[in-house]
């Protein structure tokens, strides 16, 4: 943020994390995380429980202090700023609605001290209630609301101060499945309309893929990869990311000696495989080839490709998944739409795939 022209230019990067680390005693909850949030972006932090994603959110909100590294907002370092002075707001996983206050008073809570007149406050609360479709619920107590209604009150309350960045900790975690899917779309639409930057923590990959502009995958305190869902799916940075976003075959091998190019040869138990690889890997490195089941093409015994035998067929409605044992004993999963040629259990088949759809990852 040394560039004076960019400082205070909110259109670029409202939130910037630089090498943020948080340790609790000997346990490192967040390790060396750097991340730039774009203005108006919907970012999901995705990872299993205990991966540090919630801690990262609490660091941004100011409930925890980073052990090292810095967190900046619109070019201003947030260090030492207590939660109540930060222009970010948070929607809590438990919603944390004040049980002794009505819906309206919950929403108005954050408006105090903003210098609004009584009428302006009432108007703002009214507007927020309309925004989350809860008009008429102003005087209800939180314990008289359904789960979905509580979720929307929590959202309205967090939006009341018009934060630069809204932090949402598992915002849909307490809702049941059908409501969750409906709310995902709503939340996404709301975010588009407000053009506020959202940082959403979730452990559900499909939820992240449904809502996010970009997904940041976290594991054991580290931010493994940040990118759009398609990018993460097609070009995962490592086997953790590859496995998190859907089913994947991982074939172990060693990188061949051919020159660095868009595709390289990997020596595997199945024989040499051509797959796309980044430049960071050198000849002889231990690698895995990540191959999505739906990218495998099957052909008759007489066709081209690697030989294998179908050992299990599972009908999944919109597609059919087959387990195929290869000649070296490796079992691969292949899936494709129904209605194609029927290879039953015991059928000998040939497998093929485009080199661009197989990705070489560090082992």
């Amino acid at each position, binding site marked *: 943020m040394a560039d004076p022209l960019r400082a205070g230019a909110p259109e670029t990067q409202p939130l910037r994390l630089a090498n943020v680390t948080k340790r609790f005693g000997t346990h490192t909850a967040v390790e060396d995380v750097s991340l730039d949030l774009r203005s108006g972006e919907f970012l999901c932090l995705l990872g299993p429980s205990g991966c540090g994603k919630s801690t990262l959110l*609490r660091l941004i909100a100011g409930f925890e*202090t980073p052990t090292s590294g810095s967190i900046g907002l619109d070019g201003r370092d947030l260090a030492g700023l207590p*939660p109540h002075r930060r222009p970010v707001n948070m929607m809590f996983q438990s919603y944390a609605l004040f049980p002794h206050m009505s819906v309206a008073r919950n929403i108005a809570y954050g408006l105090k001290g903003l210098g609004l007149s009584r009428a302006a406050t009432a108007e703002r609360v009214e507007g927020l209630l309309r925004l989350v479709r809860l008009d008429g619920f102003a005087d209800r107590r939180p314990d008289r609301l359904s789960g979905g209604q509580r979720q929307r009150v929590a959202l309205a309350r967090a939006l009341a101060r018009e934060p630069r960045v809204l932090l949402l900790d598992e915002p849909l975690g307490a809702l049941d499945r059908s409501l969750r899917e409906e709310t995902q779309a709503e939340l996404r639409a709301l975010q588009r309309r407000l053009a506020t930057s959202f940082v959403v923590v979730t452990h559900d990959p499909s939820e992240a893929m449904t809502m996010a502009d970009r997904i940041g995958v976290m594991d054991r305190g580290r931010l493994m990869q940040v990118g759009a869902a398609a990018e993460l799916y097609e070009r995962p940075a490592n086997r953790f990311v590859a496995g998190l976003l859907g089913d994947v075959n991982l074939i172990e091998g060693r990188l061949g000696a051919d020159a660095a190019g868009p595709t390289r040869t990997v020596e595997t138990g199945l024989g040499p495989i051509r797959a796309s690889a980044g430049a960071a890997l050198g000849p002889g490195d231990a690698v895995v080839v990540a191959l999505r089941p739906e990218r495998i093409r099957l052909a008759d015994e007489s066709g081209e490709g690697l030989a294998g035998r179908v050992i299990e067929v599972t009908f999944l409605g919109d597609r059919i998944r087959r387990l195929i044992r290869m000649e070296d004993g490796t079992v691969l999963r292949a899936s494709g739409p129904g209605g194609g040629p029927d290879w039953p259990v015991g059928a000998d088949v040939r497998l093929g795939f485009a080199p661009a759809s197989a990705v070489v990852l560090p082992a």
Partner: protein
Amino acid sequence: MTPRSARPLRALVRLPPLLWLGAFFLVPFAITLKISLSEPATAMPPYLPVLDWAGGVEGWSSFLEALHFTNFETLAGDALYRDAALASLALALTATAILIAIGTPVAYAMARASARWQPILVALVVVPFWTSFLIRVYAWIAILKPEGLLNAGLLRLGLIGAPLEILNTQVAVLIGLTYAYLPFMVLPLYAVMSRLDPVLREAASDLGASPTRVFWSVTLPLAAPGLVAGALLCFIPMVGEFIIPDLLGGSETLMLGRVLWGEFFSNRDWPLASAVAVLMLLIVVGPVILFREAETRRGEAAR
């Protein structure tokens, strides 16, 4: 996590209770300890030496020279005090054992009652706990005395030929202790037992354990923290109990609390009373520390 700027504010929150309890709980103990090393005098205050605060170092050293251990020698040498200490311990231990035997089934039955009944049962146990201790002990006089209700009932049923001498014996004291402290045993036990996951009991019986085995192998071990808390909560104050031995125990039952009371109010021997207090403190200090640990652990477990 509160930011560092709020830290001085926090010390301010702790200060009033710390100062109050320090001044009115900790300092008094130090004074009691000091006076237990003094000798009685017919003055006000009725003990010597009195520390001359203005005397400086010299005042202190002459003060320290005048302290002696006569009171503790008296306590150790006189059979009356030894017996009182032993009787206090024996009665408190026996009563604690009886309380565990009675309190456990009651707490267990409360925890197994339906959700609708549980708050009512808790209230029923709590009401006597809040009712005047003095009055509840006093009520037993009318029941236990020779011409009292218990004897009248037993005589009428023909179970006994002559009235039993219960009042003014150690048996009456044990009945009184058990009665007065039962809620202290039941409530912590119930608190733990009611939180036990019923699925654990179901799993045990699914694995072939009889109801008795389920109780001994699952319920009771998991309720141990409540049992410990309840036992300490009863044992510690029972050691120093005054009202129960005074009203129900007659002249023959000497417990430490009563001896202390007598030395103080009847004999006006403040130093000896202080020495008895110190002795009592030595008996209960271990259990008190255990109790504090148990409470802290219970607090953390509930987090």
